[in-house]
């Protein structure tokens, strides 16, 4: 009997040992030698073979460690890479497309899970917190770095030294960095800027009519006050001669969409004082929220007044609605990410090459949070608002393959092609992308291309920048802020009252997460904003 139980124990131990060996061999893939490349150096690359939904544009494979030629030398056959990304098409579609290409050229099996935005944070973070290697690669908005950073594998030096990575602008390398380590792999660069229809704003007849009515010159607005005046003047008028009214402004206003970003864009010039250091969302010393201070309240007042210039339903616009309202020519002006601009520049757009990009409107005075007074001075503050990013889980057993995938995803050829597909959500983030000639090759007029690249590159040069609140629990903070903004827009609360309540909510969130933890993270944001 004793002998039997002894044998049983040995058998059980053998099973455990075999299982452990199996698991280990799965987690530590064998390194296979390189094989002959499937591509020639500098070969023409296009997405044509993947269907008519992709542009026929061709670009050259730029030699380097992430190129088609280099990656096709790797042999990942027999290995599986697990990726989680946003739903198709925004970032989800390029994730799938490049996964398919990666499979074709390396032999790897790549499994991509696409998740709606509302579930992405939880689906990524929960397994990370549990230490489970559910996904090797994750695509998510870069402002979640405060929640994700502890679980991410730093980008290895060999990838940081690639020419593509070296060309990423300083702002987006900063966005990818946490406590001095690059933990996010840059794949996109997002910022808010202004888009206007030049066929209206530069039309001599309309300029004369505007001058006669207001006594002012009609031009691309430099301040939010000008933006409102112009939007109000043209709202309800038929600007296209199609018998339908056009409207002044399209903004993201749907509460649980990205309203918080729209509001921060409007608040930026009122709250980001070039001569006052320290946080604009919190007082760094006390961690008291500043979102109910006069600058933010004025921005919300402006936004409430702007309702009269929105298209019907404009108070419930998500990002998609905003893109199609401006991109489809319904509204005269808009401000948010590149998508509406790229949409307006699609070959079948009726306002193609009748638009212009410009910096976000500014203000004629800025609130000084140290003296608690308004300083009369023109102010402008570019807003770098999230942007998709990617990262590799620290718990991943396939880190080398994961970083190779990201390296391939963002190689020069893929990025150049991705930039031309508006729905992909990939926007300029390398210095090479600020090249007007590239956009002219896509059929853009010279002036349009110039305004686009100058607006984007100009933001990089600013020393008065606003970044997202990149701290743990950022979703909660933004949810509370959006709730306040939505309450004011719906007329349920006055702007001051709505923001007072949001500030109280922020204080509770800070207490819950831990004041020191939030402060430490927020220091990173302040360092980006106060960078000179």
């Amino acid at each position, binding site marked *: 009997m004793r002998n039997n139980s002894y044998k049983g124990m040995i058998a059980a131990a053998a099973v455990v040992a075999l299982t452990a060996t199996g698991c280990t061999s799965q987690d530590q893939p064998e390194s296979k030698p390189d094989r002959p490349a499937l591509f020639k150096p500098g070969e023409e690359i296009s997405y044509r073979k993947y269907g008519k939904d992709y542009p026929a544009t061709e670009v050259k494979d730029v030699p380097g460690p992430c190129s088609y030629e280099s990656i096709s030398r790797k042999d990942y056959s027999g290995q599986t890479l697990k990726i989680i990304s946003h739903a198709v098409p925004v970032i989800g579609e390029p994730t799938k497309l490049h996964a398919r290409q990666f499979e074709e050229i390396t032999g790897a099996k790549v499994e991509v899970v696409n998740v709606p935005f509302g579930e992405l944070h939880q689906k990524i*973070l929960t397994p990370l917190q549990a230490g489970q290697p559910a996904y090797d690669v994750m695509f998510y908005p870069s402002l979640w770095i405060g929640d994700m950073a502890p679980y991410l594998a730093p980008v290895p030096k060999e990838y940081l030294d690639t020419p593509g990575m070296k060309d990423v602008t300083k702002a987006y390398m900063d966005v990818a960095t946490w406590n001095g380590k690059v933990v996010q792999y840059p794949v996109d660069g997002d910022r808010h800027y202004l888009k206007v229809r030049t066929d209206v704003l530069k039309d001599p007849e309309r300029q004369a009519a505007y001058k006669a009515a207001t006594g002012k010159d009609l031009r691309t607005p430099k301040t939010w006050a000008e933006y409102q005046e112009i939007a109000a003047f043209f709202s309800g008028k038929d600007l296209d001669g199609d018998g339908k009214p056009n409207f002044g402004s399209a903004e993201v206003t749907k509460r*649980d969409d990205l309203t918080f970003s729209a509001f921060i864009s409007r608040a930026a010039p009122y709250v980001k004082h070039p001569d006052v250091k320290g946080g604009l969302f919190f007082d760094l010393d006390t961690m008291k929220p500043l979102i109910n201070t006069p600058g933010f309240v004025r921005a919300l007042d402006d936004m409430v007044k702007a309702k009269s210039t929105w298209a019907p*339903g404009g108070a419930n616009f998500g990002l998609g609605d905003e893109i199609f309202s401006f991109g489809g020519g319904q509204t005269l002006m808009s401000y948010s990410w590149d998508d509406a601009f790229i949409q307006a520049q699609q070959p079948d757009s009726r306002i193609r090459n009748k638009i212009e990009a410009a910096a976000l409107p500014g203000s004629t005075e800025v609130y000084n949070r140290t003296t608690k007074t308004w300083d009369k001075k023109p102010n402008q503050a570019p807003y770098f608002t999230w942007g998709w990013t990617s990262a590799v889980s620290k718990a991943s057993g396939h880190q080398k393959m994961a970083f190779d995938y990201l390296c391939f995803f963002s190689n020069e050829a893929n990025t150049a092609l991705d930039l031309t597909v508006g729905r992909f959500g990939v926007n300029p983030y390398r210095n090479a992308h600020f090249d007007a000639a590239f956009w002219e090759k896509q059929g853009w007029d010279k002036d349009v291309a110039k305004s686009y690249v100058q607006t984007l590159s100009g933001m990089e040069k600013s020393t008065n920048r606003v970044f997202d609140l990149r701290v*743990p629990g950022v979703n909660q903070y933004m949810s509370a802020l959006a709730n306040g903004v939505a*309450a004011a*827009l*719906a007329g349920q609360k006055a702007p001051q009252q709505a923001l007072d309540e949001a500030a109280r909510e922020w204080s509770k969130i800070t207490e819950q997460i831990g004041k020191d933890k939030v402060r430490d993270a927020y220091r990173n944001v302040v360092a980006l904003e106060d960078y000179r």
Partner: protein
Amino acid sequence: MYGLRRHKSMFLLPGLLTLLLIIIFPLLFTIRVSFSGWNVSSPQMDFIAGANYAAMLHDSRFWSAIMRLILLAGGTVLIQYVVGFGMALLVWRDVRGRRFWRVLFLVPMMTTPVVMAAIWQMIFHESLGPLNDLLGMLGLTKVAWLTESGPALVALMTVEVWQWTPFMFLLLLAGLLSLPKEPFMAAAIDGADVWRTFWKVTFPLMAPVSVAAVIIRLIEASKLSDSVYVLTSGGPGSSTETPGYYLYIQGLRDQQTGYSGAMSLTYLVLMIVTLTVVAAMLTRALKLKGHS
């Protein structure tokens, strides 16, 4: 004999175990979670006593959502009952194309709620939607369906009524088809007109089915969140936010696991108590009606 009974009771064990796993364990786990501070940045099962429940008592957004749900669920189920009963009465008797109407009336219920909410969102779209175009053609003012509180509630209720009236219709039609013929024959012999026959015979006889149908729909309506998510996202402001949608925001999006656990348990208890009381009241009212 005792041994045989014991032996037989063993057959209940798989069912009991399944029940334990799928109902009792998650419930106990939620109770435990509700006493923890588990949130996005601190995913741990610590113990913070009743702090989540105390916070919930002061959460006006949660209580407003509960009050709104009473209006939404009560209002929509009442309309569904009246319309559903009317439709069932229409196709109960011999009418031309009876089978066709029966199938047609069921179509909304067979569609996916989220998909239909997305289609309704397009219908209610204030600048592109056909509804405002129709109002314009009739010379009526366009309505801000999704950006003003009152119309947004009406829009939400319309989708709910459209989607779930067929369910009410189905239950009530089944009830009507199972009614005995004798009381109706007696009423006819007594010379009762259609209206009197309905109030004195059909309606009282349908009381048990009516109560069951209303309660089932109230239980379903109390979970209303998918239509809200697609149609209004709780807006404008928070004027269409329901407890189910607020729980989604707190629990899944903001990952306030402990707090949302406390809210969901409170919500569960409130719903059980409310629906039990409503069921008792309805049964009593309809019984009294039947005896009068």
